[in-house]
Every structure is written in C-alpha cells, then in structure tokens.
C-alpha cells in the first residue's frame, strides 16, 4: 500500500513537471499573410503596426513564447511610440487638428493580452500538434498519480474516524519546506494566469480539442483554469470522501460543491457559449461576481435577447432575495460550503491546510475591518458604475468609474481572490479570501449574524477545552471560547463546514437550524452546577 502511494507521488510529480515543462516548448512565428489578416480583423488603423509585427514575428528563427511575447510587445510599443511622437510634434506646432487625428491610431490593451492573442495563432510544436497525448501526460497522469497517492489511505488510515495524526509533524502541512514550495508554485501559477497569459499559452493548446468540443471555440487561459479547477476538485474530493467517510455531513457537502462547480460553474456556461448565449454561472452571486453590473456585462446581456434579460433578473433576485432567504433558513453554509466555487476549492484542495488559520483576537479584528471594507467598496463601485452607465457620466462623487473598476479588478479580483487567496493556502490556511476578502461572504455573514436560524449548538457542559475545534476551524473562529462557556456559536464568518463538530472528541458541537429564540443562549448555562448558582450567574 505504501509503495502504491509513493508510486502515485512519483507519477504526480512527473505529470506536474511535464505540465510545467510544456510552457517552455514550441516555437512561435507568423507568416506575412497571417499578420495581414490579423491586423485586418482587429481593425487596427495604425499604419506602422503591420510592418512592426512583421518585423517581429515573421522570421525563420524558432522563437520561444517568451521571446515572441517580448517582440510582439515591442512592436505594439513601437507603433504607439510612433504616434506619441507625432502627438508631441503637433502639440509643439500647435497644430490641434493634426494632433487630434493621431489618437485613433493608438492601440490600447494590456501588452500581454495583445501578445497572448497573437501567440494563440503563432504557436506550433509538439504540444499543439499532440494535444491528446499531452492531455494524458499532464491532466491524465496527474490525476492518476494523485489518486494512487490518495486511494491507499482507505486502508492505510484504518477504520473510519478522525484522521489528523501527524498533521503538525509534516513539512507539507506544518508550514515546512514543502508548504513553501507549494506556495511558490501556486503564487507563480496565479501571477502567470492573471498577468502573463501569453506565457501559459501552451496550456491552452492542450485543451483546445476539449474546448472546441464543448463550446466550439479554442481554449483560453480561463478555460484552462476552469478545467484544472474541476479536475483538482474532483481528485481532492476523493480525498475528502476517504478522510471523512464516517461523517455523512462532510460527504454530502463535498458532493454538493463538486456538483455545483462542474455543472454550474463549468459545463453550463460552456454549453451556453456554444449556443451563442452569454456564458453565465447561475450560482455566482453578486458581489462575489463583482463585474455583474459592469457596463460591458449589462450591454452584452441586454444584447443577447431573452436569456440575457433573464440572467440580469436572476442575478439581481439571487443577491437580493434568494441569498438572504436561504441564509435565514440554513445559514451562510448553504452558499459558502455547499455551493460556492471558491469555497469548493477551499474545502477540497484546501482541506489539508485548514488548521493554519490564525485564531487570535487580533486577526478577528482585522478580519472585520477588511472584509466589510471590501463589501462597502464593491457596492460603491457598483453604484458608481451603474450611475455612469445610465447617466453617461464618467464619474460620481469624484470617483472615476473606469478607475475604480480597474483598481478593484486588479487588487481584489486578481491579487486578493487569486494570488493571496489560493496561493497562500499552505501557509495561512484555506479560507484567507473567504474570511478577509469576499464581499459576498461579508453580506451573508451580516444576515447570518442577525437574522438566521442557524447556529452551532454547544452540548451543555461537556466541553473539555481541548482546542481541536478551534484548531481545525478554517475561518479562524475560536470555537472553544464559546463551547467551554456552554455558549452557542453564532458568528458571521462561520461557513458551516462542520469540521469543528467532526473533530470534537466529546460530541459537544452540532450545526443546527432552529428557532431564533434562544439561538444565542446566555453564557454559563448548564455547565454542571445546579440551577441556583446558574441563576445567579445569569443575573449578571
């Protein structure tokens, strides 16, 4: 069994090495005709860009993606410089008409995105030509290796029960060197995905066939991310099923997040795209889905007829009615640990890191400041955007609509949710984003705290203050602080993962929905002393 595990590990490492290695393969170059065609379809007005791109990409040399990217970016830069020079010149000449004319020739867009679009056409090589084989060598081998590593646990871990032995002894789960390596890999991955899409264009070649099958188009880096996300969640869900096989709540919850990820976040949007509809994730609620009310989205939805309008209405109802109503009945957990994609990754890939969250009072304070600020900013951004959309203005209250959207997308959307939120799993735990950053979680949390039937009931005086519950709370809630006082746990951040209840060796905690009365019970009830003393304590 052990041997199988190690073989699995080796296979997995080989797969991930191949996967990473593909990035450095292939050669990139275009023909004159291709450049011509591209410039035309893009509708560039610049008279120099074609020539610049030809210089950069029509070559006999075998360009790597990095070199190709650098040349393409230079080409665009050169074109823009050319017109900037003209602008400066006409400005000096005070020739306003001429100066004004030049702006139409400039080409806007993020350099690496421009380069990605060309690279997608320019690439050739083994990976692109053998996408199927490469799929097997990466996704296929990786999944097989990981499963070989995970499945023997069914026997190795022994009878069903709590399986936390050695967690704080292992370099992978106790912030050791393995954890740091994983962190570096994940952070690099996210940086590339968000800011250097052209560098990972080879990955998209691997998935082109699958993408074409599903939605009729080539794979983008987001398709790669979505597919990888589903693969990782599926494999790690198997791990969850084995680890928590004695606990039906965990099994159901894992199945639920997996279903919503694969069907709602991945398949339905792809199928919608193939039917020429806007691809939409029906469970992704605003303000987690922060660009739902951005002009481009509203425009694209209103342009796509009935379905688009339906999505607009659905998205609005989801946030304003369904979300709070469900939180009232079941607590925030129905979303955060049963439906949400971010939560889904956190509960599968992130489960081995759940004990790394910070439980100090300080971090709780920080959490409340940060997460509620993000909520306020996301709402503010949306108000500004909508106002500008309907009024045609560029800003509201001195806040420029484009600026706030760009800043939010960059800082919150990319850095917080991706790079830090997931990249830092191995060091700060698996719910950094959900705890400190997610505006939807903040909103759900407010409802949960003040108007919900959900609570974690404490079983009278049975707590022995051991600390397992607090340690394994991914949200950094000091569960024990409540349990040892005999107090129910009603906290806005609780995502209802149920692990505190699972790990408690004394059966003290139970996630429940019930009447609002007595949900937050007075402290010191029933710790064991007889009623009189308790009355006295309660009078305080």
């Amino acid at each position, binding site marked *: 069994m052990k041997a199988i595990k190690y073989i699995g590990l080796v296979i997995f490492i080989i797969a991930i090495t191949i996967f990473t290695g593909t990035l450095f393969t292939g050669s990139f170059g275009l023909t004159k005709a291709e450049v011509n065609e591209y410039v035309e379809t893009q509708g560039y007005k610049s008279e120099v860009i074609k020539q610049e791109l030809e210089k950069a990409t029509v070559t006999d040399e075998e360009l790597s993606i990095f070199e190709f990217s650098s040349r393409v970016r230079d080409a665009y830069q050169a074109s823009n410089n050319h017109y900037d020079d003209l602008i400066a010149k006409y400005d000096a000449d005070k020739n306003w008409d001429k100066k004004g004319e030049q702006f139409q020739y400039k080409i806007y867009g993020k350099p690496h995105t421009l380069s990605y679009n060309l690279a997608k056409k320019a690439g050739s090589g083994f990976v692109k030509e053998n996408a199927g084989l490469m799929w097997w060598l990466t996704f296929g081998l990786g999944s097989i290796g990981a499963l070989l590593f995970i499945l023997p646990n069914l026997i190795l871990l022994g009878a069903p029960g709590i399986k936390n032995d050695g967690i704080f002894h292992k370099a992978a789960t106790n912030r050791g060197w393995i954890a740091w390596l994983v962190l570096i890999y994940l952070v690099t991955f996210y940086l590339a995905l968000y800011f250097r899409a052209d560098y990972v264009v080879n990955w998209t070649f691997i998935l082109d066939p699958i993408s074409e099958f599903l939605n009729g188009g080539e794979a983008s880096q987001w398709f790669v991310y979505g597919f990888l996300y589903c693969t990782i969640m599926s494999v790690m869900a198997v791990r969850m099923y084995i680890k928590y096989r004695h606990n039906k709540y965990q099994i159901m919850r894992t199945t639920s997040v997996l279903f919503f990820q694969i069907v709602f976040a991945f398949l339905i949007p792809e199928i919608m795209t193939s039917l020429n509809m806007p691809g939409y994730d029906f469970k992704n609620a605003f303000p987690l889905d922060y660009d739902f009310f951005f002009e481009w989205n509203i425009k694209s939805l209103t342009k796509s007829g009935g379905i688009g309008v339906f999505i607009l209405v659905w998205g609005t109802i989801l946030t304003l009615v369904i979300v709070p109503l469900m939180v009232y009945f079941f607590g925030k957990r129905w979303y955060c640990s049963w439906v949400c994609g971010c939560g889904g990754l956190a509960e599968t890939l992130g489960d081995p890191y759940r004990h790394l969250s910070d439980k100090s009072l300080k971090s709780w304070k920080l959490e409340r400041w940060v997460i509620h600020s993000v909520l306020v900013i996301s709402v503010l951004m949306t108000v500004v955007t909508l106002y500008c959309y309907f009024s045609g203005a560029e800003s509201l209250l001195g806040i420029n609509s484009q600026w706030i959207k760009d800043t939010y997308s960059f800082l919150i959307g990319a850095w917080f949710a991706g790079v830090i939120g997931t990249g830092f799993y191995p060091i700060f735990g698996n719910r950094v984003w959900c705890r400190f950053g997610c505006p939807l979680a903040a909103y759900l949390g407010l409802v949960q705290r003040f108007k919900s039937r959900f609570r974690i009931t404490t079983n009278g005086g049975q707590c022995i203050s051991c600390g397992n519950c607090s340690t394994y709370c991914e949200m950094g809630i000091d569960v*024990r602080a409540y349990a040892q006082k005999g107090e129910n746990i009603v906290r806005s951040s609780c995502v209802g993962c149920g692990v505190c209840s699972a790990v408690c*060796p004394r059966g003290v905690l139970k996630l429940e929905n019930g009447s609002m009365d007595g949900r937050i019970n007075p402290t010191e009830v029933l710790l064991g002393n007889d009623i009189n003393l308790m009355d006295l304590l309660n009078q305080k």
Partner: protein
Amino acid sequence: MEHIVIIGNGISGVTVARHIRKNSDKKITIVSSETDHFFSRTALMYIYMGHMKYEHTKPYEDYFWEKNRIELKKGFVKTIETQSKTLHFAEGGTLQYDKLVIATGSKPNKFGWPGQDLDGVQGLYSKQDLDTLERNAPDNKACNRAVIVGGGLIGIEFAEMLVSRKIPVTFLVREDSFWNGVLPKGESEMISRHIKSHHIDLRLSTNLKEIKADKNGRAKSIIITETGEEIDCNVVGLTAGVSPNINFIKDSNIETDRGVLVNRNLETNIPNVYAIGDCAQQREAIGNRRPIEAVWYTGRMMGEALAQTICGNTMEYNPGHWFNSAKFLDIEYQTYGWVFAERGRPEYERHFHWIHKDDDKCITIAYHKDTNVFLGINTFGIRMRHEFFDTILTQKWTVDKVIEHLAAANFDPEFYKLHEKAIVSQFNTETGSTIRLSKKGWRKIFA
C-alpha cells in the same frame, strides 16, 4: 486589597481566578510549577499525535492574564505556613496571601512496583510527562514496544497516542474486561474488542510484577505476575489511576486524608484556605459521587462555586446531575445520570442495553425496577444532548417516556443515520411495551 493566591493553574485554579475577577477587584496570583500559562491537560494526547501544538491547547491567549490583572508566578510551593499566611518556594522566596486556594491536581499512582522509577518508565499527567514521552518514544525505531499498565481513561489515551506513531503497544489491564469497574459488561466488552481491533495487544486479568533494567538503568522489559512472561519494551506507561498531588501539604496544619479535606463550601479546616479540583476530598460524598472527583468538569464547577464564596456570596459546591465523557480510540462515550457496572450496582437498578451490529455503537439505560424512573444513560458512538437528560433527570421521567422521546435527545451531526427506531423496537420486544417513537424536537417537549 485582599490578595487571593491560588496554587495550581489547571482548570479549577484558573476557573476560580476568572470568576473572582468577574465579581471583584481583588488581587489575584496563580502559582504553578508546570507551565507559564494554563493549558488543557485533556489535550495532551493530541500534541503527541500531531493534531495540535502546545500553543493550541491554551484556552486563553497569553495577553488575557495581564488584561484581567491575574498575576502568574512560576514556582513550586514547598511549604504552606498557615499561621503567617506565607508560601515558601522550592526555588527560594516567599509569597503572602490573605486567602489561599489549593488546586494542585493529581499525580499518577505508583504501587511500589520494582523498577517503577527507571528511565523509560513514566506516567502521563503533566506537560513534563509529555516532553519525556517525546524523548522516550519519538518513533517506532527508538521505541520498539511500549507497555501500558492500568486500564483507565488515561491508559487508553496513552495507548492511542503510541499507536498513532506506529509503536506496538501491550496494554496490561487488571480487570477481566476493559474498565468494567465503571462500565457495564456489554459496553466494556465492546470497547475491549474495539481496542484489539486497533492492533493493541490487550492483556486482560493481567498484572505487572516488575520492570527490568538494562545495564544503563533503562527499562528493557516487564514481567507479568500471572504467567511470569517477560515482554521486551523501551517504554512503560504507568496509568493505574491518579491520586491528589498534596505531598507538600502533609506537614502543614491543613487537614488531609487522601486529598485535602473540605466541606461543602470547599473550605479546609483552616480559615481562608480552600481546596478545589482533583486534590480536594469531600468529607462526605455528595450523592453517588466519589469524595474525590478527578474530572475536568467538577474542577470547573468547584472553581465557579468557590469564586462566589470568596467574593462574599457564600455558596456550596452543589453539582447537578452527574455527566462525563471520554473517547476510546474511535468511539465516543457520554454518560448522564448514573449507570453502574456489575460491581457496586444498587439492587434496584435495572438495565436496558442495545448494541449496533457494527459493534461500534451501543447504549445502556438504567432505571429503577419498581418505579421505572430513569436513572441514567451511557451512550457509545451516538452523541446525546446534555440539556435533554439534565432536564428529564430533574423531572424524573420514566424509562418508557425517555425511550419514546429518545429521538429528541440525539445530538449527532445532521444527516447521520439514526438508530432510535431500532432501540425502541428492541425495548418493546424485551419489555413487552408498545412504545412508538415520538418525532417531537426537544424544545417542543419541554415547551
């Protein structure tokens, strides 16, 4: 300002300190020779098993003590001079008190076995014991086998710890079934089987004769009394119960027996000196309770009660209905009210026992054979609600009524398979009753 000094920073000492602070402005000092800060002794096993680090076992963050003006002093109290109200420390120095609380807990029992003080022989009580174990048994290369002597709650935890590091364990238990001085037969036997299923070499009806040393004075083997068999091992765990940790008090004026003798107000024979927790011994046992109650919950309750007394609101230690819990490897155990084992069972106590076919869940309900009044329940592998049983014990429900409403007592996580139906039907068969399981939630029943 009155100075309250508490010896011992365990659950009882810390609880009394916290509640004195809640109710007054008195000066409070907690003395301990064990650790700088309060930690949860019950969690010691999880540190060794790698579920937690020592840091996680501290119920309060380190800033808590200063913020609440509770002074912490590290030191070992050598003698107590009650006349001058002075503590003398082994490290030198003294401390004056106005009121003194003795909360020094327990120490592992040693019964004079030859070799009991050798290297490699240890109990499992203090943080130091844990550190010693980490040195004695870091893994199964340094420790090829461990022998645990004494089949109680700490013994089974000790065995589980070693098993988590794949160290082979031989578990010597004096009784002919695990913990059957406390658990009725059916339960005790189920747990015995469970222990064996975890590949622990459980030896029942077996006593330790002696521990043998190698030439370096380290334990190398043990001899069994009954068979004379010699078992090679590197670590011997002594877990044959605990007794009050009060040697340093024996020479003072404070009256002691096995523990520090106290009345219901937790006062000793000396005014302004109190004792609580594991080290306190009631002059007269309270109800079915033992005079010395060495469990977490009672330490906490005594601390709460004594704080009231010290703050001028004299209050007896008046524990409610008995409850307790433990975990035997994978099987959780809870008890509410009284369920006696074969030994010492009152003549009027009758049992209903149900066991699941998987051999990992069972319950025993005790009731009065004449009045049918429910006396208590032991539950294994099924969590039950404390508040439910506390209420019905006070209301003196009959066993029939308890069985009928058993579903309301369930405290298992959502979606768990429920067993009340099976339990009710077995009860009906055994007693010829026709009870139907009620679906009412527990709040509805008591409303």
